């Protein structure tokens, strides 16, 4: 058997998109059910009969037939049925993953629900995985998805790319959703769920690349987001060691994924070709400073502080302010009172707990007792074992 290990996951969005196209947007639920049913039949058929010549077409035909059966069961039907039953020379449907993504990122939904629905319906992640990524009980997440789909129905959301005038704002929402999914991937990795973290990042990358494949959505800010995602996730292999989070200063830079860094830098180069400067450009710029630096001491900290200043202008936030302060007090940060022993944690991680940052700053200022107290507070508030491991190491090193 030779199937890509993510074949089902990748087919999921295509099947759902193709079925929603033919059933109408109000049948997103049935489309998801039909995709799952097609996978179930594949699992029971292929092992006995061998892989079909075109597995994707096989899945589509089975999913479509299942949907037709279900609609026949329900009594309403007539108008949609012909579109489904009409035979086609090639049963492989067009790829409507992107249209489905825009539908799931409909402005009538909260950002939180957009993320969950996109990852479920388009990226093919399970409710258990999503619940783990967003730290909510599975039942809560399932309930949110039900409500989100009902809302799409109420507002008459359609499976289509937005009109040209609405496109920039709608694309912005899709990119925000991808960024949040990427951040959730980071958190999953910090929490010890490395497989889940990698899956989330893979899906963000795949959907970002799908945006670049279409002329309407191939815009510089998409390149900027991909640059940010690739440059940031290239550090994944070095971020966890023996179950503990490894801060940037202690990471083995040789373990960073070079191919990913290069791909990220290539996207960053192409992100410049446009009039818009998004926060993704600036965040990617910060990531690039780290990617290009041979060590923490040889990092272009003044430039990083400058990029944070620009970010704060675009979108002020307490986390950014905190990260900027950490960057400012790094070995080569501009006006440090004590630059001797500062070891910043990853300044771009939005999860850097406040107490840990305080500890780093106190240490940088030569206040070991204050640093110890702050580490201990961080230890009490840590949400995962790798985090706790990292704080214990820092305490031991004091």
């Amino acid at each position, binding site marked *: *058997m030779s199937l890509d290990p993510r074949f089902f*996951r990748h087919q999921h969005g295509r099947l759902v998109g193709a079925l929603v196209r033919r059933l109408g947007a109000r049948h997103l639920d049935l489309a998801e059910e039909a995709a*799952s049913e097609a*996978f*179930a039949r594949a699992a*029971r058929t*292929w*092992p006995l009969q061998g892989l079909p010549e075109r597995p994707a077409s096989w899945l589509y035909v089975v999913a479509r037939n299942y949907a037709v059966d279900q609609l026949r*069961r329900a009594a309403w039907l007539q108008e949609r049925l012909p579109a489904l039953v009409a035979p086609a020379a090639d049963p492989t449907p067009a790829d409507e993953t992107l249209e489905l993504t825009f539908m799931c990122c409909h402005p009538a939904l909260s950002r939180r629900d957009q993320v969950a629905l996109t990852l479920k319906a388009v990226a093919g992640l*399970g409710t258990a995985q999503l619940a783990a990524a967003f730290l909510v009980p599975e039942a809560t997440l399932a309930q949110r998805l039900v409500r989100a789909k009902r809302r799409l129905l109420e507002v008459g959301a359609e499976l289509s790319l937005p009109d040209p005038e609405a496109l920039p704002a709608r694309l912005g929402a899709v990119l925000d959703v991808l960024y949040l999914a990427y951040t959730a991937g980071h958190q999953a990795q910090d929490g010890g769920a490395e497989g889940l973290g990698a899956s989330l990042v893979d899906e963000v990358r795949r959907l970002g690349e799908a945006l670049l494949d279409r002329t309407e959505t191939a815009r510089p800010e998409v390149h900027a987001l991909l640059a940010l995602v690739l440059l940031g996730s290239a550090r994944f292999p070095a971020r966890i060691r023996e179950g503990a989070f490894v801060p940037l200063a202690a990471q083995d830079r040789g373990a960073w994924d070079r191919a990913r860094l290069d791909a990220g830098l290539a996207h960053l180069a192409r992100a410049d070709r446009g009039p818009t400067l998004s926060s993704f450009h600036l965040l990617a710029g910060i990531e690039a400073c780290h990617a290009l630096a041979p060590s923490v001491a040889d990092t272009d900290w003044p430039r990083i502080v400058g990029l944070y200043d620009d970010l704060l202008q675009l979108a002020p936030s307490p986390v950014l302010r905190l990260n900027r302060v950490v960057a400012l007090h790094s070995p080569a940060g501009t006006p440090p009172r004590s630059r001797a022993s500062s070891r910043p944690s990853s300044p771009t991680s939005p999860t850097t707990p406040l107490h840990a940052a305080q500890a780093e700053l106190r240490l940088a200022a030569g206040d070991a007792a204050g640093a110890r107290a702050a580490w201990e507070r961080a230890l009490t508030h840590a949400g995962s074992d790798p985090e706790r491991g990292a704080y214990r190491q820092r305490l031991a090193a004091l």
Partner: protein
Amino acid sequence: MAEFMILMRENDGAWGKLSPDQQQALLEGYFAWVEGLKRDGVLRGGKPLGAGGRLLRAVDGEVTDGPFVETKEVLTGFFLIEAADLEAATEIARGCPALFHGESVELRPVGHLA
């Protein structure tokens, strides 16, 4: 040698709660299991069962083909295997991947009941 049927029943939509990744892992489980059965020469056949269908019932002497089968437990497919006895067949059925995605497996001897 006797023939046995492995009947698989899904409970309460368990398969649909899995992610596509998990579903694909189970597909690979089925491939490996069926491969093993073929290698051991004990597989006689098998088929998946569709979800639709119809339930025929006689009510007061009259046969009705009542709407569709609508139960919490649905038959999803079967395998026919060959084994020396029920114990040996049970050993084979234990490996059936259906057991690992929330289905129950029923093992029944086929024919020759004497």
